């Protein structure tokens, strides 16, 4: 709504005096996002939040990168005389469960924080607990991926051994790097949730969780490709 208002009638003020509550005027900046009283629960945001737009844009770029990597896999397979199938380490299925569970705990945390912002929930500890659980499951996922690499290594499959092992390390490695980025984002959310001087914005929380869920979906997709092709 904020961004495509009809112009005011002729004769109205040419320029409006800046006011923190004029967020519905597009804002032209980050103003109007935090109310004067500073009460987090009263934060009203214009629907077009740059943070939410930004995360969708970022996710489409990440999706494009992985699409490029997938097409590289298909082209490389087509050109290959050295395609040796590898057995996927079974720990990957456990990791998948951990990552899926982390999406659920994050969703619970998001709802609890929403309730906290609306004043229905008074304890900070409840959402914090769910956020901690998400962090833990995320760390378990990354550690599990590391175990999968160790498993491959113990079979003598290194990054350059054959195209299949190359793509395995590449896909899981790039994805794990993105998951670590997501863990960084979650840490930021937790710090902001506890802070009163730099409070958590709803859009930051939403963007971080979209990113996190996307990592889960992306992992399922990658696992499918790895299972299908390697």
């Amino acid at each position, binding site marked *: 709504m904020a961004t495509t208002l009809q112009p005011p009638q002729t004769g109205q003020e040419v320029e409006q005096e*800046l006011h923190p509550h004029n967020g519905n005027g597009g804002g032209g900046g980050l103003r109007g996002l935090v109310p004067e009283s500073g009460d987090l629960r009263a934060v009203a945001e214009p629907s077009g939040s*740059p943070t939410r737009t*930004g995360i969708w844009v970022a996710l489409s770029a990440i999706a494009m990168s992985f699409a490029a990597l997938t097409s590289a896999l298909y082209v490389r397979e087509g050109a290959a005389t050295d395609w040796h199938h590898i057995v996927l380490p079974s720990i990957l299925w456990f990791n998948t469960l951990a990552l899926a569970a982390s999406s659920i705990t994050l969703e619970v945390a998001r709802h609890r924080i929403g309730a906290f912002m609306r004043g229905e929930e008074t304890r900070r500890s409840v959402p914090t607990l769910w956020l901690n659980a998400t962090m833990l499951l995320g760390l378990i996922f990354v550690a599990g991926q590391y175990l999968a690499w160790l498993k491959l290594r113990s079979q003598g499959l290194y990054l350059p051994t054959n195209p299949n092992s190359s793509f395995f390390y590449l896909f899981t490695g790039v994805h794990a790097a993105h998951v670590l980025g997501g863990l960084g984002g979650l840490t930021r959310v937790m710090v902001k949730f506890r802070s009163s*001087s730099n409070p958590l914005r709803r859009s930051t929380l939403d963007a971080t969780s979209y990113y996190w869920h996307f990592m889960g979906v992306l992992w399922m997709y990658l696992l499918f490709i790895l299972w299908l092709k390697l």
Partner: protein
Amino acid sequence: MSEATAHAAHQAPTSFIRKHVFSLDHKVIGLQYYALALVAVFTGMVLSWIMRIHLVWPNSPIPGLQWLSKVGAPGGVVTPEYYLSLMTMHGTLMVFFVLTNAPFAAFGNYFLPIQIGAEDMAFPRFNMMSFWTTFIAFCFLITAFFVPDGPPLSGWTAYAPLSAVGKDSGPGEGLGQTLWALSIFTFCIASLLGSLNFIATTLDLRTKGMTLARMPICTWAWFITSCIALLAFAVLMPACLLLFLDRVAGTSFFIPSGLNVSDHLQPHQGGSPLLWQHLFWFFGHPEVYIAILPAIGIVSHILINSMRKPLLSHKVVIYCMMAIGFLSYMVWGHHMFLSGMNPFSALVFSFPTLMITIPATIMTLIWLGSLYGSNLRINTPSLFCLGFISMFVSGGVSGFFLAQPSIDIYLHATYFVVGHFHMVMGVAAIFGIFAGTYFWFPKMTGRMMSEKLGKLHFILTFIGTYCIFMPFHYLGLAGNVRRYSAFTDDFLVPLIPVHKFITYSALFTGAVQLIFIFNLIYSRFKGEPAPPNPWEATSLEWSTPSSPPPFDNFGGKHPVVYHDPYQYGVKSSTGDYLMQTSPERAGETP
């Protein structure tokens, strides 16, 4: 919380470092990009001079060159390998650090937020990061000059396996090429951050009344370009990662089996060199439009101002830019007609390539049709706009030939291609940058650039660039292959006078740019003070309270937009135009 704390990130900084170095202000970041592009363009130009001089006087030493590379230019005479290194660095600097940075990142950063009435970009910290990441990428690339074996020699396209097998394939293919891959990877990160910022800013930070349809053409161009850049650099980044792994980790993504380079069997197998070409050109062709679309936007914006009337249809120009952006993803194969792919796929790529000429032609006809009968104000920005159209058409016409696989078999990798892309995307985009610089200089500095020097600069540059790049087409038709540092075949010897002419023209045109640099520096300090709206323009950048605009652009107020961006040729209290912020109704056309 007080409003002041909420805006902590938006307080004008006071320290020198936060003000001029690690600044969050989009205007400072825009100027930083511009300065980086200036350094890159002069470096790239000097490299092209060295190549041109070596081509026509192969045995005369170039003073000072032996200092740059003892191996590549012993005694100041360029070796064939070093010639390729110079060419690689020229191309990489120009395409990435000039043509992507100047019209898109520099002007876009400075003017996109102002033109939509925002006080800054959506993510000022990302914005600062994207400039400094670009700077790091630039440092990686320049470092390649100073490593023992010198810069890479695989061209700006870094074709594998030449770029992938390491030192065996030539000097510079060791550390130099690795630095190249690192540099471009880093550049991708910076461009992705920048594009993300542009898109979020355009979609979410427009001021009251600034609907999408009311955005100026150049804002549209920057927006469309950022959408293209987002998807293109997202493909180049993993491609660089694969190249890097092939080089340092021993993988075989791009290196085929049994490859013997310099009597040394490569320890790789099964890779596909064509895979690199596909990934690279999937980025590479949209990259051409990343360079030219902002220039198209800037030129249209300035041309309308100089004509004092709207384009025949500015919406159609925007739709054409969208069509070009969309089609740019379907034509990458036309760079690979001779890569041994199936002739049917050549046809498949040829068709959308020829289709791109349709929106390009429509835009050109709109410019020309709007110019017809207009009362054009002849000033330096408008002259460079005319120069742009001329270059765009002259360079674009040769694209018709190259788009056809059968003709491309003959012309591929000849100077014809070099002439084509230098005119249509190189010089044309540079003319767009010049037009933008002369037009917005008063806004960026508060002073006018010298018109006399500007016109002189235009005339000499215009003649000079035609003298350089037109003969390239002739050389290509005569069968002169590009990238050769010497004329090894008898049939090339009669072409040497043409090469000499090109070299003289290149030295002359390069020297002429000193007029521009002088004008830039002189006018910055001693130029005539600029009135608030020197070009009687309508868009929001001319309604800021001062030039350069204050830290938050509109002095603590939000502009309100009442009109579409090109209310020229109307009756109003200000003359023949209505500012976007003017609540007045336009009278009848005089």
